[in-house]
């Protein structure tokens, strides 16, 4: 159980490292160019991994609806935006506000799909996140 816990924490750290490194690259190039390199290098690394362990292109892949393939294009804008932001508002602000946006939009997506499990906790959580965002806007 200790190993999964460590690896799950490490995954979060790697998300931060990736954004920090791409942010540094965007300073010398542009956020979109940083996002391009992020995707090319990631694609290369995953190709090598897939070819060495096998199962890179599974049988069911052809049955997936076309919209399931939209994630990559959205990811390009996501990485570019993160690179642009981290160089301007810092790692903490970027991480927290992106997480906040992910949480609130996730709850909204659930409601749109008619999922209402854990609704009370979700609504309370959204309220806390919005309060935190409002706090960043208060003048001192």
């Amino acid at each position, binding site marked *: 159980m200790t190993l999964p816990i460590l690896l799950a924490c490490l995954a979060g750290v790697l998300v931060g490292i990736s954004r920090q490194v791409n942010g540094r690259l965007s300073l010398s190039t542009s956020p979109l160019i940083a996002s391009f390199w992020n995707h090319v290098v990631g*694609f290369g690394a995953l190709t090598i991994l897939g070819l060495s362990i096998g199962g890179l292109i599974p049988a069911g892949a052809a049955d997936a609806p076309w919209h399931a393939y939209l994630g990559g294009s959205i990811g390009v804008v996501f990485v570019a935006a993160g690179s642009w932001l981290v160089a301007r508002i810092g790692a*903490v602000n970027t991480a927290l506000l992106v997480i906040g946006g992910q949480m609130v939009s996730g709850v909204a997506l659930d409601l749109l799909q008619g999922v209402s499990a854990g609704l009370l906790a979700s609504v309370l959580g959204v309220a806390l996140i919005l309060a935190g965002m409002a*706090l960043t806007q208060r003048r001192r």
Partner: protein
Amino acid sequence: MTSPSGHRLNPLHLLAAFGTGGLLTLMVHFNGELGRYGNALFSSWAAHGTGTVAALVLLAVLFPWRARNAGVKPRAPLWAYLGGISGAVTVMLTSFAVNSPLALSGTLALGLMGQVVFSIVADRWGLFGLPARRPDRRDLAAMALIVAGSALIILFGRGNA
């Protein structure tokens, strides 16, 4: 070079970051669907491949605008091109953790913790060539509220469903 973040956050930056989180929800949704037809590795591989093509198309479309704005910038160190490796490893770690007893909610909660701790350290010492920043009390209070709200949603709200 530590700059206190004394003034309030630019509302444009705040909205951009919040909207970026919305993009992440959509991305996870689509990549998750692709993963169910194939597997996590294929989903990430395909997303990086289609993303590379999408980035090239966007760069081509935006080229005239970029050419006008191009200025002299300091060269990037070689390691700055390797952010994608970190992203690729994240996919593997996450798919491993989700299938462990941690499940999705535990993986998300611990990932959130890892991100928050790293971002504090990164800002404090300006890691990887970005400016160092020192949080003030208001920043810390905002952080506590957003972390608490996210933890509630992950552990007792949607993540737990």
